[in-house]
């Protein structure tokens, strides 16, 4: 088990190196260098920057040097913990991202827990009561859940709450807590607001996971060992939970590898509609204002979250299934 985890951990720097190059290419992608466009933007809004400052910025990012030097300068600053300055906000990037990153992770984990808590019972019921009313109901639910873009669900719920109850359900905090420092009361306020984005984000994944579980469980339910246990007089619910479920749940755990990153990046759209203080809307804004270093850092953050998500699911799977850890170690 330890060997397995160590092997996975060794892959981490390699992946992050590749991803940092991808992020850097994205930073470089817009035509022209960003200092020039920033100066032009300042000029358009009436203010200006003196030549010394412009030169200092060019030097800092190595803009007149070849791309690999620029990459090296950027990545070595990041490794030292200096994420740089957002030109759009005129604030250090670490300050902008910090709080939002925490909320992104909290929202992602809450969604994950919600998904599993709902998908497990639905999957089990649809498999054990195949072709029942429940099964058909959840089949329809699955098709609709997969087909509805998350932002549509958010819009419809937002509109429904507003037109029927006159309440706005945007944001993660009440106004009085939005800028307050962390306290117990603020955490309670967060819990009051987080459930809606959590449900909206989790709907699509719940439908998919329940479907996967149903299919896997159906494969197991007809096996001879089930008949054997039944013949021995084992109660049905105990039988299902104890044997076939444990086999059928493996693909579900391995789906965490793609599901967790999907939640993190998928929350971007819902967060934009619901105006949540996560890193998604910040990425959108930085891309629109071409604040590319902020954008690149956020994309790199998403990559980091994805890598950690995959790692966690690999470890969890190895812990659950001895066959995998024997094979890989």
């Amino acid at each position: 088990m330890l060997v397995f985890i160590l092997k996975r951990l060794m892959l981490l720097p390699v992946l992050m190196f590749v991803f940092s190059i991808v992020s850097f290419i994205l930073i470089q992608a817009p035509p022209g260098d960003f200092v020039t466009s920033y100066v032009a933007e300042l000029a358009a809004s009436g203010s200006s920057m003196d030549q010394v400052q412009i030169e200092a910025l060019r030097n800092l990012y190595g803009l007149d040097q070849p791309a690999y030097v620029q990459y090296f300068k950027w990545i070595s600053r990041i490794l030292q913990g200096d994420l740089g300055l957002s030109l759009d906000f005129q604030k250090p990037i670490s300050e902008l991202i910090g709080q939002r990153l925490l909320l992104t992770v909290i929202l992602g984990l809450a969604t994950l827990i919600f998904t599993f808590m709902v998908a497990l019972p639905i999957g089990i019921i649809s498999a054990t009561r195949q072709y029942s009313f429940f099964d058909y109901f959840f089949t329809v639910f699955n098709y609709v859940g997969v087909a509805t873009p998350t932002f549509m669900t958010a819009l419809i719920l937002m509109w429904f709450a507003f037109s029927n109850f006159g309440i706005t359900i945007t944001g993660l905090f009440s106004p009085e807590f939005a800028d307050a420092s962390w306290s117990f009361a603020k955490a309670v306020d967060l819990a009051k607001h987080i459930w809606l984005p959590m449900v909206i984000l989790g709907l699509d994944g719940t439908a998919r996971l329940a479907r996967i579980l149903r299919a896997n469980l159906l494969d197991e339910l007809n096996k001879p060992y089930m008949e054997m246990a039944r013949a021995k007089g084992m109660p049905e619910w105990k039988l299902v939970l104890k044997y076939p479920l444990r086999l059928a749940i493996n693909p579900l755990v391995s789906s965490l590898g793609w599901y967790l990153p999907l939640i993190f990046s998928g929350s971007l759209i819902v967060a934009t509609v619901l105006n949540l203080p996560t890193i998604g809307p910040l990425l959108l804004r930085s891309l629109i204002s071409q604040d590319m270093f902020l954008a690149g850092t956020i994309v790199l953050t998403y990559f980091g979250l994805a890598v950690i998500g995959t790692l966690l699911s690999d470890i969890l799977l190895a812990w659950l299934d001895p066959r995998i850890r024997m094979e890989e170690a």
Partner: protein
Amino acid sequence: MSSETLSPDQNLPEEADAISVAPNWKLVWWRFKKHKLAMISGIIVIFIVIIAAFPGFFSTQDPSESRTRGSFIPPQAIQFWDNGPALFAYAIEGKRNPRTLKMEWITSETKKVPLRLFGRGYEWEVLGLFKTDIHLLALVNPDDPPVHILGTDRLGRDQWSRVLHGTQVSLSIGLLAVFLSTIIGIVLGGISGYFGGWIDMFIQRLIELLQSIPPIPIWLALSASLPRTWSVTQGYIAITAILALITWTGLAREVRGRFLVLREEDFVVAAKLSGCSQLRIVFRHMVPTMSSHIIAAVTLAIPVMIINETFLSFLGLGLRPPAISWGVLLQEAQNLQSVALAPWLMLPGVAVIITVIALNILGDGLRDAADPYH
């Protein structure tokens, strides 16, 4: 399903022979026909494709024509009964609320706007070949106020016509992006599965790397870096390429898996022994065998692309106006203010949902039918 249930009609004795000599596509078709829901979805998809080909015929108004005095008109219902079969809509009149100065639209039950089928309206181009002004639904009297089946948007543009024209763009972008990623997927997946060895190793690692990248931030960053001065067509092509760039991996895996299985089959060994070239074995013998699998996988990939295009355009980073796609239309409904004022701006989302559900069920049906021997 056992092989007896495959026959289209049990009463005919020669049908038993028909199964043993039927070509692969016929077996697939017989089996697909049994799946009622997939058949219905197939018909819906055909309808959607017809709309996408001739959006002008079904429209009631030029989709980009705006009327400043007709913004945010709610949807108007078409009436079919007026002491006997008829075709008309009740006229709608705007009154400015003296207190809030907001325009309020009231349906007047007394004034009727008569409509007719296959009447004349604005001029539109049929597949870019010739022009006509025949529409499915048109005003009897051209001087009557226009009827808006799905209401109008901020600029007073007819939403029904815009949704129909959006069908053309959204559906074709999905098709094109899937077409591109299918080609990449088949070529790379085929190479990987057929040759194996270090080539397989390299392509598999590349696919794993691409699959571990969260796609949405990458798409956003790539499309944000497109020059804003690009024309609608350039933007369309670029967005299609961006969507295809990351999604070919799933198809490549599917194709590779099939190749690995087929490589060991007797008919491939036989072809090899009779001296077929490798290219001939791959394209003449192996690809046709898995074509039904590829078609099913492609059908399931199109709705994913449609939703992704909607995401990008909705966030303002995909297609940009004056292009019309479902995502661009939904951009109008981006915040609570506009949704509360004009909830019908969310209706293009219904078009997305119907299309995606129909394509998903159709794809599931095709996938189940793709293996007629099992």
